[in-house]
């Protein structure tokens, strides 16, 4: 199967600090690729590097065959890559409708209406608070708004950075369910960074264990979940 991402010896950091020390991996089309690891291992930094929000210190990123290593974020977005940040992923003082409208800023009115209908079909919960300001919403509702903002762009690949952090188990399940459906129903490629390693590995195809900026494991997600040493040492599983 064709690869969506081809990452070669990628080094990512901020300013003079290097956090990801040369990682090489690929993500296949229509795969649910899970990235797990302890706090401070560089998971979020890696995603930011892939989206162009952290500086690339070396290596190469191919996205659907195209070299995007030096492209700014909005150019990557145009190629169908979407990024769901962990924090500050919505405009608090704007209404939900305005947030989604902004995400589709460059679409004409008819196209926007059509896509909005599709998004609301996928995330019907949002219908209940379209006209409310985001700052009045709960954490889970906000994640859904951020989710919708990405979906309005009709991406082919979505990268999630801990979408269930600080959510209730019920809300987390709902978000996980929608992420799974992105892959199964819509045929999208998903890169998922998660603290909730067990849940993420259970639904993932392949997984990567990142420890202090280097790959400790790369392979089937199920195998990492049941791995004798790694699962207990780094992920707090199987104690």
């Amino acid at each position, binding site marked *: 199967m064709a690869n969506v991402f081809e990452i070669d010896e990628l080094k990512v950091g901020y300013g003079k600090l290097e956090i990801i020390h040369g990682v090489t991996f690929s993500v296949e089309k229509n795969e649910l690729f899970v990235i797990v690891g302890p706090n401070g291992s560089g998971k979020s930094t890696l995603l930011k590097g892939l*989206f162009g*929000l952290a500086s690339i210190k070396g290596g190469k990123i191919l996205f659907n065959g195209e070299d995007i290593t030096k492209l700014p*974020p*909005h150019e990557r*977005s*145009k190629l169908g890559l979407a*990024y769901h*940040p962990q924090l*500050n*992923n*919505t*405009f*608090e*003082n*704007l209404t939900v409708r*305005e947030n989604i*409208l*902004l*995400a589709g*800023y*460059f679409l004409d009115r008819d196209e926007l209406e059509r896509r909005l209908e599709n998004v609301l079909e996928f995330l019907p919960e949002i219908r209940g608070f379209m006209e409310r*300001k985001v*700052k*009045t919403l709960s954490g889970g509702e906000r994640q859904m708004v951020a989710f919708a*903002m990405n979906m309005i762009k009709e991406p082919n690949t979505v990268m999630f950075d801990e979408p269930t952090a600080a959510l209730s188990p019920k809300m987390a399940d709902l978000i996980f369910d929608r992420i799974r459906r992105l892959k199964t129903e819509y045929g999208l490629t998903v890169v998922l960074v998660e603290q909730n390693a067990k849940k993420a590995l259970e639904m993932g195809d392949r997984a990567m264990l990142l420890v202090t900026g280097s790959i400790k494991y790369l392979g089937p997600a199920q195998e990492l979940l049941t791995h004798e040493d790694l699962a207990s040492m780094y992920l707090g599983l199987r104690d």
Partner: protein
Amino acid sequence: MMLDTNILLDALVYSNMLALLSLSLTLTIMTLKVANFAHGDLAIIGVYGAYTFLILAHVATYLTLPIAFLFGGLYALLNYVLVYSPMRRRGANFVMLMIASMAIDIATRSMLQMYADVLKLNFKVYSRAFIFNDVVFNIAGTRVRGLVLISTLSVVSLLAILYVLLMKTKFGVAMRAAIENPALAEVLGINVEKVYATSWFLAGGFAGVAGFFLPFRIPTSPDLGFIILLPIFAASILGGINSLSGAVIGGYIVGVSEILGTYLLSQPPINLSTAYRPAIPFAILILTLLLLPQGIASLWSRGE
């Protein structure tokens, strides 16, 4: 003691100006997080632009009002493009931007002094301490001073335009988004530079319009921009520093308090000199910071 109608009307006119100035100062604070010490100068740039046009074209005074908007707006845009935007991109903090604004203030006032000399030497006109003569409109049998009518209409129409722009247009939504979270707006492909530049142009234009009304009330000189800074900041801080509606209301509270307060304190039995006038906005500023540091906007935005 009866308040003279003229005092009340003067309070209205002064408050109209102050509302525009504090609104526009707040707009620049919200976009760039800079305490702009050159904000008063934008008003003076506006009025000198209008005055120059008046000397050259000999038209009715009020017809030069759009010129004041244009001069104030373009000068603010120039400030943004040449100074603040490059500094923002290099990651300048609040203090650096504030000091840059002080430099712009000094440079602007010096330039205006030079320009005043040029005007005087070339056109043989008063270029310092000049005044505009008002006209009286007759509306359905009621005589209304032009200053009262036009300044009030200006505030109402500019506020309406700004409201429609911010709340009803796509560009306005993008403006509010870029003000709240520029990084996220940039990720979504919104041109944050363009949004900020537009905000500065509008802010400068609003300040220019306010400046246009100055010579109807007091003799206007190049240094006046610095003198009017205190009430502008008092109004903006009273309004909550980050609230446009708060800034407008703050402008009216400070404006009315300043005019009526000065008048009442100068009457018997207190007989205070009107020279103490700046104490009123200063007292409002101090009381706000002590008692309601988030400004009056916090009174209505808390429950949202």
